[in-house]
């Protein structure tokens, strides 16, 4: 049972990383902001600048 719980936790963590939710949480922690439309706009601005230079694989 514990192992299944752990697998679900990891799967959720994978999805949060793929969908940048973890990156947003790290951003909030780093900038000491609380989640809000303004904080998310600031995160996107910083994040997109780096992300837009990353190639997507074929």
């Amino acid at each position, binding site marked *: 049972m514990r192992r299944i719980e752990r697998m679900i936790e990891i799967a959720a963590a994978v999805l949060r990383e793929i969908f940048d939710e*973890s990156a947003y949480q*790290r951003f909030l922690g780093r900038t000491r902001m609380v989640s*809000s*439309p303004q904080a998310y706009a600031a995160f996107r601005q910083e994040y997109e600048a780096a992300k837009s230079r990353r*190639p*997507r*694989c074929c």
Partner: protein
Amino acid sequence: MKNISQGLLWLIVATAGALSLSTVALHRGEQINAMWLVLAALCTYALGYRFYSKFIAAKVLALDAQRATPAERLENGRDFVPTHKWVVFGHHFAAIAGPGPLVGPVLAAQFGYLPGTLWILVGAIFGGCVQDFVILLFSVRRDGKSLTEMAREEVGRLGGFVAYLAIISIIVVLLGVAALIVVNALKASPWGTFTIVMTIPIALLMGFYLRRLRPGKVLETSVLGFVLVLLAILGGQWVSQSPALAPWFTWSAPALAVAIIVYGFAASALPVWLLLAPRDYLSTFVKLGTIGLLALGIVALRPTLHMPPFTRFIDGSGPIFAGSIFPFAFITIACGAISGFHSLISSGTTPKMIRREIETRMVGYGAMMAESMVAIMATIAACVLQPGIYFAINSPSGIVGKVPEVAAATISSWGFPVSADGMRALAQAVGEQTLFNRTGGAPAFAVGMAHIFSTSLGGQALMAIWYHFAIMFEALFILTVLDAGTRVGRFMIQDALGHVWKPIGRTSWYPSILATSGLIVAAWGFFLWQGVKDPLGGINSLWPLFGIANQLLATVALCVATTIIIKMGKVRFSVVTLVPLVWLVAVTFTASWHKMFDPNPRIGFLSHARQLASSAAPGHETVRLIFNDRLDAIVTGILMLLVTLILLESAWLWTRVLSGRREFEVKESPFVTTRFAVEEQG
């Protein structure tokens, strides 16, 4: 006791692998179940990972559990973040898996199921997985440096320059051919076109929800977007049956091509891509879901393969693309076996997330195995179709004829029976006007996937929904690759031209943005337009060009890897990268030579141009086709020259190092002990 039981377990895996592989390879006459392919693949991956990757990790790369990674040393909460190995694995897999492993194997199925399957397995275990693993590790040991930077530092300035040109070439050809796949999937399809058009307002809505209502809740937003896309698919059926609305979404191939070119330019040059960004998440969500669903479908339904192991087209006379198994099967399937593009991901975001050096094996080697499995599933999706249907969908009208009865008769004469009525019924079942001449691989994959699911989930009644779900998934994903790729290409051109004239390098200067966006869109738009206007369907010319460009990048990556291994003083172990390198050089050179100089006009660009020139009085269209052929030959020649240059520079360096004229010196970051090893022990 533990050793004996483990040995026994691996003996069982090896036996099962040998049995399933021999069934797949030697079975003749009767159709086989797709599960044999799945079992053969799983056993091969298990053995490859357990033994070969372990050998590389221990002997060649000497992974050090005590060495801190850049994610730990340079941790900043932004780029460098130590991350759990399974999270990095998932992130890396999501970044490397695109439409390539789905399209390439579908096209290569014209040779039968066996050549593609064997190349996917052998190519991945000894080539693709090794490339991804070693480049990832070498990038980790160099503070997450990119392939271009490593090529410049370890091979030389020429190596860096060739890597840059290879990346630009592959981006341009990839975007052109990817856009062509979307055009061929959506042309004269009001259902598909409506669904894709609807993703734009859905993305805007998702953007509003994500920014204003639930900041940062991307997964929740993606689920919402997914539900809306499903509604759009259902709405598409209604639109396609509406005499008033259907004509609005029934577009010809040239009209779709123009729309995609305008879209690509707008996404790169205007700030609209910020609004479209949520669609990127949506496409990732749909991609992961579809791959998972397809895997479940194949395992649960265990479909039968109708395609024979070999078809008559192994002689090189294939209707989808001309050319024999060697070298064309090996450049047609790149992603899924070995893809140079992966080296950009392995030296991009992933090395900055690796927590422990020893985890590069699981992430680099393991994620590529997972992608290879996706390619096996695509092979299955194509091969569950009756071969006649497969060839009817994928063959261009220039080969089989435009009239359905003529096309069906031509394909039947090859020994793959199909009837025009049968194809009409199938088109009706999937909600399309016709399925003839839908080159590009995506429609055949979609029909295969719909076929697998409709045998249980919803039956024939849901076949049209499944088909359009698969088309939507591929088109959506390709369009996000297209807008992201155009922006990456634009930045690369700005960076390069910025050395010549500084203002061009300013990424916020609008004239520069417009000019460089126009340049990159014009480059891939040219290939797209060429493909749309090509009577042979475009895929015949462009997919091999893409394969050559992709394998060129893999050649650059393997040259860098071999150079570093030699400089590490492990010359005898350099065979692990040298063997796939030699193979890729043989494949790339042979394919390039054939594409340029083969006397068969269906293969050689120049002989095709000569044939056109010698035909009846050349009109405007013919002159354009001749120009395209000659340009394609020049592009192929340039790619071949680039391979030669990087090889010569690498070989020159190897000779100098081995003869003692240059020191064995690698440019790694200094050793720092990791704190994670101590934490784990404590």
